[in-house]
């Protein structure tokens, strides 16, 4: 059964990929038709956007700004994951801590991103640190909430086993706790990456002299819609590539033991 199912599943995945590309092509076609019907500079057709993207690429401003934004996304993302995971495990494992800080978490989860960003700029100045802290602080509460659920569900018999054998704490964390949290961490990472880059754009728009968010504001000032769409589409493509070539392989590696 399993032997027969494997090629079928593989061809199913190929079909799915083609359909996905097809649906994107349909979207582009609708866009093209709509742009031609509208005939207005506020809705440039995809060909014009592609041309703009190429021009910005050749000029060098697009790779420069995207690299800066990506660097901010990755630093803030890593900080939020580390901080959020540590706090999430602590809250999930200690009832006392959970009761003490659950209210804080609810407030943090409901804090509008814009408020955190503005406050960080006011408190820490219009600098790189403030920008990255603002993004990390926005993102971390969600990581805390997701990993807390995972940490609550840790396998008790295994924890007793390592307690009885007095396995060193670091090894318990690496080999017993984190593998069980892997699904939660992957869920947090996936939702987190998307959320992080959206917030980074706002941070850049409000207080940075470069980056995709800053560029979009300049384009807005000049009513350069093709430029806005070109930057946006390229950046989405970069994030999708990270998802496909980094996060998904990680996810598969973590779940290897489930389908031996």
């Amino acid at each position, binding site marked *: 059964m399993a032997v027969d199912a494997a090629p079928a599943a593989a061809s199913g995945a190929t079909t799915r990929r083609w359909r996905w590309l097809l649906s994107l092509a349909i979207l582009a076609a609708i866009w093209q038709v709509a742009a031609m019907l509208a005939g207005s500079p506020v809705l440039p057709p995809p060909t014009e956007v592609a041309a703009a993207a190429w021009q910005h690429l050749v000029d060098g401003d697009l790779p420069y700004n995207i690299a800066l934004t990506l660097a901010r996304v990755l630093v803030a993302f890593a900080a939020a994951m580390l901080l959020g995971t540590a706090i999430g495990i602590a809250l999930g494992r200690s009832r006392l801590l959970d009761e003490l800080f659950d209210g804080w978490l609810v407030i943090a989860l409901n804090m509008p991103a814009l408020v955190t960003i503005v406050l960080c700029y006011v408190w820490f100045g219009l600098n790189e640190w403030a920008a990255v802290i603002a993004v990390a602080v926005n993102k971390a509460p969600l990581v805390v909430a997701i990993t807390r659920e995972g940490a609550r569900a840790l396998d008790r*018999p*295994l924890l*007793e*086993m*390592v*307690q*009885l*054998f*007095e*396995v060193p704490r670091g*090894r318990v964390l690496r*080999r*017993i706790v984190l*593998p*069980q949290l892997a699904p939660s961490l992957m869920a947090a990472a996936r939702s987190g990456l998307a959320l992080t880059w959206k917030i980074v754009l706002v941070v850049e728009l409000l207080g940075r002299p470069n980056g995709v968010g800053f560029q979009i504001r300049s384009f807005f000032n000049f009513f350069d819609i093709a430029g806005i769409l070109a930057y946006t589409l390229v950046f989405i493509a970069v994030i999708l590539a990270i998802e496909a070539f980094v996060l998904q392989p990680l996810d598969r590696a973590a779940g290897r*033991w489930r389908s*031996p």
Partner: protein
Amino acid sequence: MIGLALRGIRRRFAAPVPREVLDGVDLAIGAGEFVALAGPSGRGKTTLLRIIGGLDSGYQGRIDWPDGPPRRRAAVFQDPRLAPWLSVLDNLLLVAGREAEPRARALLSAVELEGREDAWPGQLSGGMQRRAALARALLVEPDLLLLDEPLVSLDHALAGRMRALLAEYWQRHRPTVLLVTHDLREAVTLADRVVVLAEGAGQVSLQRGIDLPHPRDPADPRIDAIVDALLRFDPGLAVAEKDEGEPADHA
């Protein structure tokens, strides 16, 4: 020389119905002694083992360790408790560290799991997982070894070989061993002393030293005689032979 002394151990469980599982257990166990706690389920054997292993702190009474608490503890639980995301070998190395790999491989072949080092636990039968758990316990070279029905789902011949392995290991390394078993013959074959907790009373009702020389043959008529004597004293022990034990593992 005393390894540990239990003094007036009481343990009360609230659910499903409130009851005293242990109601004043006094028991001294010598350093390097092999003690079997025998009898059917529901008499608090596992509870006592968990208290000694430090996994249950909700008890009253005292545990004294005249020579200090054990430096290295190990256990075989009723369920194998292997991490399903670690290979069999990595499950062993989890408790002993990377540098123990040669010994871990040797122990895995001693429990007849050679060639399964890189398998996931989920690919092994229940009996194989149990043997991996036994190898894991011996790997840390414990001075306190707690065994909770370690051989229960193995088929007859395999259980015999594992029993011999355990006896030989104990003879060579002399850890203090506490073996919980419903199988009187197993208890008498392995232990220096068989301890029985009374039905419903939560106290030690019977202790019997076994001074037969090692290695012992389970078919030895002297073992039959001791088992019969224990059964005459507490016929409840015979029930255990039938109602416990999981389906045998023929893998």
